[in-house]
């Protein structure tokens, strides 16, 4: 069942740049969908439209039922430098005025799931880039989202850190049955993580092609993974 449907969404910025034109796609509940495309193709704009941070000029963004609880992860960890990991990750719950005890419990659990059990009292400056990103994801998880929007979250990380975070993300999304819309410009990442890859064209962005990947493709050494990788790569080349 479709959780979210975008139909003919267009967005032009104040400076006249046409970011998106005729963007249409749907996302099913529990699905992991990647938006893949070159820089400046409007991937991030699409994510911000879905989050409701900006409004489309035309077209519609329709939810099946009320809008679900959202989580958002940016390319940068986007943490408050004056607050420790626990306080940072607790932000969504604090904003909902949840009691401190309950919020702390839920946040501690989210940090533990991201492997940060012993770093709750660490300040961002004391953490590595990968750990900061883990705090950022724990913050998104603490709110108990049904839909996670991720804007190139691992682009700035080194390869081993990125692969570890990819695996953790997949596990958590599966355990919590979270739907994920994942923006990336990495073919590797999109092919590894996704049930479905939506390849976008350069500006103004729209969906050029759609590749459904087989469920068994999540072994980086498997034949089916390299086959998926090949299909995504050629789709991206055609879109450019």
């Amino acid at each position: 069942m479709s959780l979210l449907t975008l139909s003919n969404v267009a967005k032009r910025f104040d400076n006249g740049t046409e970011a998106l034109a005729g963007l249409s796609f749907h996302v099913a509940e529990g699905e992991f969908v990647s938006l893949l495309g070159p820089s400046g193709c409007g991937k991030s704009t699409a994510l911000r439209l879905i989050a409701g941070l900006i409004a489309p000029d035309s077209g519609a963004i329709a939810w099946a039922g009320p809008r679900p609880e959202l989580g958002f992860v940016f390319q940068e960890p986007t943490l408050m430098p004056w607050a420790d990991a626990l306080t940072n990750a607790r932000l969504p719950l604090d904003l909902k005025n949840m009691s401190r005890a309950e919020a702390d419990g839920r946040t501690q659990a989210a940090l533990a799931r991201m492997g940060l059990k012993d770093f709750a009292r660490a300040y961002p400056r004391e953490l590595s880039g990968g750990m900061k990103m883990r705090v950022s994801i724990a913050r998104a998880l603490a709110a108990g989202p049904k839909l996670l929007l991720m804007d190139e979250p691992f682009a700035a990380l080194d390869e081993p850190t990125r692969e570890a975070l990819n695996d953790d993300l997949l596990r958590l999304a599966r355990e919590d049955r979270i739907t994920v819309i994942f923006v990336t410009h990495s073919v590797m990442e999109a092919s590894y993580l996704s049930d479905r890859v939506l390849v976008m064209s350069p500006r103004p962005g729209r969906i050029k092609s759609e590749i459904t990947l087989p469920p068994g493709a999540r072994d980086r050494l498997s034949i089916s993974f390299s086959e998926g990788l090949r299909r995504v790569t050629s789709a991206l080349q055609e879109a450019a």
Partner: protein
Amino acid sequence: MTRLLNILLPLALGLSLLMAWEGIVAARHIPPYVLPAPSAIAHALANNFSTLLLSLLSTLTVTLEGFAAAWIAGVGTAIAFSQSRMLERTLYPYAVVLQVTPVVAIAPLILIWVGFDHINAALALIAALVAFFPILSNTTLGLKSADFNLVDLMRLYGASRWQILWRLRLPTALPHLLGAMKIAGGLSLIGAVVAEFVAGSGTATGLAWRIVEAGNRLEIATMFAALLLLGLLGIAIFAAFSLLEWALLHRWHESALKQQI
């Protein structure tokens, strides 16, 4: 070792300069009404200590009152600006006018309006006028420097304007505000001194007035003693705000961190 040198080197320089000063004054028989020797200044300080101390307290009170008023007005206005772009557009030019008008020029007006009966209030107001702008302008900049993505994230989680202000904008502005407070602390002292000069004798009782009075009597050593106390007061104010800055920022802010290589 480095820390010891940081203290010893300036101290050694200061002491040798004082000794040279003392030596030159004695060797050339420079009269005390032109340039008193450091020993004469020390005497003047000791002889007039209670009077000078009372004056010091008076100037300190005016400075702190002026600073507190500037802080409340500056931070309050900056918060109002951060909530309403329209208000900022309307008022900011007037804040600039206030800043660029030399306070010496408006001090006599203020003294007349507030009245010599409330001389300390008038002095504090002048001190506040001098200290107001750095607080306003730095805090305004700080409140605007909040991470756009964090603002978006907070909006996504349904944060109110008040929550964004309290949880994000104010902490972001804190280093800017603390920097401004160090400047404004010194400026309110300058404002207080200027105000006392303008107010003249008979009303004000602060250190600046002691300087004017001692100058009229050609008691140059007492002038220097008062000047010394003013300098120490300025240093104490700066040190206090530096300490506050360290206390509030050292856990997290780049400025307070040692570079890790």
